[in-house]
């Protein structure tokens, strides 16, 4: 695409920065891992990949990733579409509530679900019903789906906010299309990039998921490549086991590349379009209907099962004096909270908040740059490249960064920040890539040609239409970084402890109550993050309101 704008050197500069960072954060670390695996020779790699059990672990990993993606993405998209209906009661609350699962730290998910639904768990005690399969492959799938669906929801909602064309939908309806037909022919085609982004993110995130398969899969002997990698690391005082872990991690990267490359190079460009940044109004208000109430009731039931009960089990564990005592008032105590609220925890929380905010802010920018560059003929594939480190299990990526940069910045917050940037770049890039259609290059050029300073042009032309996507990406990276355990617990130094260190310390002291207390504190602390999402919705509403009052005055709303 031609650049004929005055003062355009910003663009090659941006491309240069992205390429340099991709080389430093993705290229070099992966190269060091390949080198580590290669030093052991091809024979060792073949032995590792053909060892007994690896085939099963690989099959489990693939089936898990496919099943979770196939279930979670439509579920998340359906939630976003349902919550677009004007006739759903308590819509504002539900829009925020469906995001609640992303606030619960993954390191307590296995425990909270087991306590909610397992033998001698919550439902067993109250209703005499328990779910024997909770500790097994099905339990792993359900928990991963329950936690991937909100992300698919977020991406779809961002897609709706930035791509939806309510006017087209209304036109379709007015011309006699059924609501299903208008969904199929207008809404879904526009959502394809967002759905593709959600699908690829969910797939790769499931490939590298570890905590849930580890805790809930082990009792059924269900192993994945990531649990196998961690087991190898536990034995990695032997160099052979360490090389085995690295080789398996690279296998996971290869697997991700195998799926991502065709999707990004062939499929993604076909889904893209360039459309006007002129936003069309979307949000309308209308009376609630029985169908809307049904939707609200369904979502509320879903939230009770996937969020409320596991969270309740967690709160009960945090408040109970000792593991195994019934959570009755006589056994309540704040000891678990007192135990974790120590100076180490406060310092660690500070470090984690700074690191997560820094990573989220830098990546919102870098993710946007990648999304812009990959639309150029020469930039295709950059999105795939930065997703490879997302597929790399945290433990292995951390070792790779330690090998690459440890001698200069080992033990500092800077190295942990690099790890977060490397790991989560894709998490910021994909939501933005799914929303970038709203940024016709011609408009930026027009703004610049009309004399707008670069900052003004970016603020008015770029940031405005992309605001929901930028905030969504920021939120995803921030929360994921804050909950991250494996990387920072491996990279920290005496002055750079993160929450991960506190989590592992409390887990190792064997007191699940204090780990639960920590998780409860974190969840409550993060509740204010959800209003950020509410802000996105507000932006959208005002945005719409500013466009045309005719849209807002339509009474029935868009179905």
């Amino acid at each position, binding site marked *: 695409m031609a650049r004929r704008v005055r003062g355009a050197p910003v663009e090659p500069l941006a491309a240069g920065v992205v390429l340099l960072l991709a080389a430093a954060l993705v290229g070099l670390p992966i190269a060091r891992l390949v080198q*580590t695996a290669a030093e052991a020779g091809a024979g060792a790699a073949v032995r590792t990949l053909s060892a007994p*059990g690896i085939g*099963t672990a690989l099959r489990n990993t693939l089936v898990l990733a496919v099943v979770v993606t196939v279930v979670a993405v439509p579920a998340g998209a359906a939630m976003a579409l349902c919550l677009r209906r004007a006739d759903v009661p308590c819509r504002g609350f539900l829009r925020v509530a469906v995001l609640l699962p992303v606030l619960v730290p993954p390191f307590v998910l296995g*425990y909270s679900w*087991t*306590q909610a639904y397992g*033998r*001698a768990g919550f439902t067993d005690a109250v209703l005499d019903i328990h779910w024997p399969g909770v500790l097994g492959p099905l339990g792993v799938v359900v928990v991963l789906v329950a936690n991937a669906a909100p992300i698919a929801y977020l991406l779809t909602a961002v897609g709706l906010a930035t791509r939806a064309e309510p006017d087209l939908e209304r036109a379709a309806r007015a011309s006699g299309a059924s609501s299903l037909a208008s969904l199929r022919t207008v809404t879904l085609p526009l959502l394809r990039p967002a759905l593709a982004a959600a699908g690829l993110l969910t797939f790769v995130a499931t490939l590298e998921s570890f905590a849930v398969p*580890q*805790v809930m899969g082990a*009792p059924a*002997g269900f192993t994945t490549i990531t649990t196998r990698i961690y*087991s190898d*690391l*536990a*034995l*990695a*005082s032997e160099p*052979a*086991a*360490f090389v085995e*872990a690295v080789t398996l991690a690279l296998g996971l990267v290869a697997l991700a590349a195998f799926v991502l490359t065709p999707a990004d190079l062939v499929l993604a460009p076909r889904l893209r379009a360039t459309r006007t940044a002129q936003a069309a109004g979307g949000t309308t208000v209308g009376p609630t209907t029985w169908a809307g109430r049904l939707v609200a009731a369904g979502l509320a039931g879903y939230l009770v099962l996937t969020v409320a009960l596991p969270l309740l089990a967690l709160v009960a564990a945090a408040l109970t004096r*000792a*593991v*195994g*005592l019934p959570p009755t008032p006589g056994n309540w105590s704040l000891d678990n909270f007192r135990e974790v609220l120590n100076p180490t925890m406060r310092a660690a929380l500070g470090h984690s908040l*700074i690191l997560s*905010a*820094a990573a989220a*802010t*830098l990546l*919102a920018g870098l993710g946007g740059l990648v999304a812009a560059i990959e639309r150029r003929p020469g930039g295709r594939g950059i999105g795939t490249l930065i997703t490879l480190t997302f597929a790399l299990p945290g*433990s292995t990526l951390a*070792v790779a960064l*330690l*090998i*690459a*940069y*440890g001698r*200069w*910045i*080992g*033990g500092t917050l*800077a190295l942990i*920040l690099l790890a977060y940037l490397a790991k989560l770049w894709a998490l910021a890039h994909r939501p933005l890539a799914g929303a970038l259609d709203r940024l016709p290059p011609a408009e930026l050029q027009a703004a610049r040609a009309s004399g707008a300073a670069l900052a003004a042009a970016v*603020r008015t032309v770029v940031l405005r239409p992309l605001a929901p996507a*930028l*905030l969504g990406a*920021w939120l995803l990276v921030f929360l994921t970084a804050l909950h991250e355990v494996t990387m920072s617990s*491996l990279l*920290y*130094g*005496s002055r*750079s402890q993160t929450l991960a*260190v506190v989590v592992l*310390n409390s887990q*190792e002291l*064997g*007191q699940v109550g204090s780990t639960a207390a920590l998780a409860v504190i974190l969840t409550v602390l993060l509740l204010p993050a959800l209003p950020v999402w509410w802000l996105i919705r507000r932006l959208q509403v005002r945005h719409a309101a*500013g466009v045309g009052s005719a849209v807002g005055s339509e009474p029935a709303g868009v179905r």
Partner: protein
Amino acid sequence: MTSKAKCSIVGLLLLGAAVSSGCGSNESSRQNPDQAAAPAAAMTLFTCANEKTEQALVANFTQSHPGSKIDVFRAPTGQLNARIAGDVRAGGLTADVIWACDPLTMSSYAGQGLINSWKPTNAGAIPTRYQTADYVGAHLLYVVAVVHKGVPPPSSWADLTKPEYEDAVALPSPGFAASALGLLGYFAATPGYGLDYYKALKANGAVQVNTPDEVLTGVASGTYKAGITLANSAYAAQKKGSPIEIAWPQPGAVAVYGPIAVTTKKDVSPISEDFVTYVSSREGQAAIAETGVYVTMEGVAGPPIPDGAPIVSPDWPALSADTSSLLQQYRAIYGG
């Protein structure tokens, strides 16, 4: 979009950028504490000993050695191994002292030349079964049986394969926990047990979880009736009120010692040997015991050990030669 909303976004981004640039410059301008030329009395300890124990020992030592400073990297064995492997490939070990949680891990560090075969002079007071020529054991873990209150405790390990424990036993995985690997090594070499014992447990419906702590949590909350876990955590949970009973079954609770050693790091800190000497001294051992952990030195009171409780030790050198084949056989039974 209103200007107010715009301000919020720009403000958020600016805040993040400010925070990030601040943290970046702080960190990069500060020399790496692990690698910079250290003051004479500073050292780095890598350990998987629990936080309370490690902190107590470090605090006592720095108090009695004014001017000394110990930087600690504490993590579970998996992370510890990965950090050490990364360090070694990034230009050399940064730890002056390693305090591990099992002899297998330490013996492979020694095999790679990471451990200086120096032992403190007071090591003589620690039983020979808890040390080698290269390193000495500082603390001990006992692998015992635990049952939910009201379930009869097993008197021998073999009891866990009986019908009264059907579909109710949880084992820690030897792929994740060195203590479980020690147990596997012990059973594999013990007549009447062997890998068949694990097959019999599996046939009786036993399941594996990852760590001994997960076993304890599961048994205390009633998910499982019985399990195999570590004595010190079990007594600590029982003291808090968890509904469990602890048994030391025949032929014995399996003892796993946590060795400590000075590394072969270049320019190793001069206080490294002093720290190891302190940890293996009577005061050091008493300080460990005070944090609720068993110690290797006899006559230092730690958590409870019932009178006449049987205790056995695996043949660690034989086990370390055999680890991968044992794990392979175990995985054929339990997966994982």
